[in-house]
């Protein structure tokens, strides 16, 4: 008798509690054999998506305050792939880029170094037109069904053997649901992969499932459905049988939801909730420092080994943080430079020559003001843009999809975004200083100050000895703000985003935190140079 193949996934006694102490999953056990499709059914809030996160980002889940306990969770991380809700295609890449990324990070070591595969062939495999692989085809142009198929193609291209499909039928019409179900079955047969399909779509569940499980809202356990009677995936059966099982399955599910759908998860101990709350408070404080250290550690290797990925993400962040708000920074800096020097030139009042005051001031107003002003404006404009982008990636599960492709988000996303954001700030600070100098030059021109540009830039490029410390301080502050702001923006933008409001909360929190960072360094350095 041949030995049963080793399951691709085995979970025993899994217990997950929410940060507030409520138990979401209590004692779930599951094993999936190669070539098997298991469907997890359940109502909203049953913990289906959380189950996926236990597999893909258990650490992040625990950092977010979830309590995850399991007797056993065993699977090969390299085999696990995810098709998130609505596909979660990477919108900073085109269709081809999504597939290219999967191909570059494919888990099959034998093919990793093989010549580049044609992404179009993977589109064909899931029934899509090869033309979609043409460079420059944005993912936003795809329909929901196409996006879902591209997501499937992406995870298949990454050579994952254990697919986790999270609500893959959301937003699809019945025809597209049937097509998706057939696609899944075809790939299972063709490639021998296993799949976990999390859904509450009865048609999809019946169409693909070899086995069915219900995440019970009654006792928060994972219960097999039709354990002995389920005949297998309905896409492989005739229509009459399919119809009968659809009705049966739907009735079972509806009865369960009617009976337990509004029940809140039970609470756990006070101690556990307090600990989770403490953890939640500490995590955001430590996160920027964590980002700084990891980004610093990963940047060189990512830049050397994944130059293309680094450039793609870096260019996107540079566009958000520098190119797009360029006009804003230019206008504001010139306005501030003009206003500040004009006001200073007038402080002497009647009888005091404005140009004499300007001669005394030189470019010191830029040295004193440019770092702080540019930093706060940068956080509010550029930082918020990148923060929102990262937050949206989290909200739309793109970051989860990255992890699912075996792409470490810290390497792929954080390191280049951190570097690009830091570089963007250095550019913005330089531009801001130039703008302020130009504004000052306009004031000088008004008063006929000779050789005004040299006078104003003297404090920057050739400061007199007693002013060198102020120039060094300004350079130091700009450096600190560059990586400090980048770290905080990445930390807050990359943090858990359970809902859309979390994105704006992250932006606001980052502006406040970075402003405090700026204030702290401004004051601390004043103490040092005095």
């Amino acid at each position, binding site marked *: 008798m041949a030995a049963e193949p080793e399951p691709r996934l085995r979970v025993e006694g899994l217990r997950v509690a929410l940060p507030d102490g409520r138990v979401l999953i209590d004692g779930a056990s599951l094993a999936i054999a190669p070539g098997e499709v298991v469907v997890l059914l359940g109502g909203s809030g049953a913990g289906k998506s959380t189950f996926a996160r236990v597999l893909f980002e258990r650490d992040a889940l625990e950092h977010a305050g979830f309590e995850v306990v399991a007797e056993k969770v065993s699977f090969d991380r390299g085999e696990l792939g995810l098709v998130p809700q609505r596909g979660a295609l990477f919108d900073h890449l085109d269709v081809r880029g999504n597939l290219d990324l999967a191909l570059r990070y494919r888990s099959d070591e034998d093919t990793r170094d093989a010549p580049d595969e044609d992404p179009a062939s993977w589109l064909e495999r899931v029934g899509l037109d090869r033309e979609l692989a043409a460079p420059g085809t944005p993912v936003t142009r795809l329909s929901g069904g196409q996006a879902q198929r591209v997501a499937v193609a992406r995870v298949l291209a990454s050579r994952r053997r254990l697919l986790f499909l999270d609500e893959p039928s959301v937003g699809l019409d019945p025809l597209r649901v049937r097509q998706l179900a057939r696609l899944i079955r075809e790939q299972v047969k063709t490639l021998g992969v296993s799949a976990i399909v999390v859904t509450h779509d009865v048609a999809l569940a019946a169409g693909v499932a070899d086995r069915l499980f219900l995440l019970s809202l009654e006792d928060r356990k994972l219960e097999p459905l039709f354990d002995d009677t389920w005949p297998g995936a309905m896409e492989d059966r005739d229509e009459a049988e399919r119809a009968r099982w659809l009705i049966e399955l739907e009735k079972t599910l509806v009865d369960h939801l009617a009976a337990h759908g509004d029940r809140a998860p039970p609470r756990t101990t006070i101690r556990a909730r307090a600990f989770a709350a403490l953890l939640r408070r500490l995590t955001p404080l*430590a*996160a*920027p*420092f*964590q*980002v*700084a*250290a*990891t980004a*610093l550690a990963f940047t060189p290797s990512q830049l050397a080994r994944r130059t293309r990925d680094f450039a793609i993400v870096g260019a996107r962040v540079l566009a958000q943080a520098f190119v797009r708000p360029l006009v804003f920074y230019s206008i504001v800096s010139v306005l501030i430079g003009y206003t500040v020097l004009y006001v200073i030139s007038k402080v002497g009042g009647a009888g005091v020559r404005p140009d*004499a005051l300007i*001669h*005394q001031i*030189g*470019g010191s107003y830029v040295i004193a003001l440019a770092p702080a002003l540019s930093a706060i404006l940068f956080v509010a404009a550029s930082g918020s843009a990148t923060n929102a982008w990262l937050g949206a990636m989290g909200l739309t599960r793109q970051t989860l999809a990255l992890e699912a492709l075996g792409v470490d988000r810290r390497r792929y996303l954080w390191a280049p975004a951190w570097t690009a954001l830091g570089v963007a700030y250095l550019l913005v600070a330089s531009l801001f200083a130039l703008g302020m100098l130009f504004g000052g030059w306009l004031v000088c021109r008004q008063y006929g100050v000779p*050789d005004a540009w*040299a*006078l*104003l*830039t*003297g*404090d920057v*490029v*050739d*400061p*007199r*000895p*007693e002013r*060198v*410390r102020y*120039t*060094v*301080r300004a350079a*130091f502050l700009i*450096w*600190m703000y560059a990586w*400090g702001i980048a*770290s905080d923006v990445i930390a807050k933008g990359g943090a858990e985003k359970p809902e859309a409001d979390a994105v704006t909360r992250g932006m606001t929190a980052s502006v406040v935190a970075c402003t405090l960072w700026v204030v702290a360094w401004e004051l*601390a*350095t004043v103490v*040092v*140079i005095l």
Partner: protein
Amino acid sequence: MKAALAGLAIVVAHALALPWLIDHFARAELIVVDGNAPAELIPRLTIDDDGARGPGLHHRRWTVRYRGGVTRSVGAATLEGPFQDPLQAACSARVVVGQRFLDDGAASPGTVAHTVVAAITGQMRDYHHWTIGSFERVTDVHVAWAQLAGRPDDMFLLRAHDAPSYVRATATIEFDRVSVPITVLLVPALRDHALRFDVRVRARLDFGNRLFDWISDHLDGDRFATDLARQEIGEGLIDALGPPPPLPLGGGRTLRFDYCGRPPEVVDGAYASLPLSVSITGAGGVLPPMLGDVAFPAPPRDGTVTLDLGLDAVNAILYETWRTGFLDEELARAGLDRRFNDDPSVQELLTIRLSPLRLALPPFVRASGDRLRLEAEALVNIGDGAHATLGRVWGGLDFRFANGRDTSKVGVDVTLGALELTCEPAPHTLVPCYADLVAALRDRAGDLHGALTETFASILTDLFVGRRVGTDGVPAQLEIRGVHATAASSGDNAVLRLALDASVLE
């Protein structure tokens, strides 16, 4: 958590690095110790002297320039020789006494001739002698600069070693019985480094009667007349032409002019030029620099009294006034420090306060194109809160003497040519200080022009105009009603000409 701690460590490392960064990137300040600047500044250091060569007060400046026209500099002044010799004063000045001062042809009031008439009349008002009768009046008075070449008759009065140039006075003293025509020659002679006048007199009694003339001859009446003329006219003239009296400087200090060793130059009927030197006294090894011989311009033919001062004379005067403390007192009296400290803008905006200035070295005047530049280094204590530093102020004033008809006020145009401040926190250690403040003052040179001009015009005017100069034992005084100052440069040297509108007061 390890990553967070690593990130925190990065922050701490940065915080600790800041003081090091500030130290590391600190740029060397300009500090000149014993004339040496820091080596790292040498590539951008310029050392320039004031451009003047030869003797004088020289200012060496070490300058570091930064972008935008910002400079930091320190300077030091040195006095370079050769120096004037107190024991052998050079003829660096002269006084030109014009014919108009002696006699305008009518012995008008204010002339020496008028003084002579007044002196004789005063002395002889009650004179009576049984031979000649009572004194009545003096007539036909003429006093003139004369040369033997133009007046061969005077040869009989002169002695072999007498100079061929002299003052020639003629007059007729009338008594009720006789008229005494007299001729007095005052022949200048240099003896014991002093200009003296030898009196040569010829007087003859003329009774207008052969008998009386015969009697007079036998009684040696001419000798009597000559003695009378020598006593009354000769001594009076000598008094009037005496050496310039010492100029009182207050506190018992005087500025003394001496006739130097060269013979006077006399031009018949025009003027006499009397070479002078300024008496100086060495002090602490410091002496006024010596530029050397100066070419005086031609004397004015229509002047009364003209004082030509070569720059050596000017600098000797400045030296003496510096040595005796007169200049420091004048500086204190001018109250530059008080004006600065009490200025409302200074009180409101600045923390520094100045002590009275005192000159570290004697000021020096040099020729600078069509101007004269007065340069000086003054010491000042600069208080800045509880901190006090010794400052060395280097200043230069450019004088351009303007021609004008009004001689009651010296026409001069004064501009600030140089102003620098160097601090000396320790002996022989020079550092820049308050450079921006000084630069701001320097930038205001145009604004200061009016005040400087007014101040120095008043000082020079007060020094000469309206003064009566006299000396003990001399009945006449010189009254100066106006002065017309001009400067003429000649190479490195120059002559400051003070044409005095002067007259003699009895």
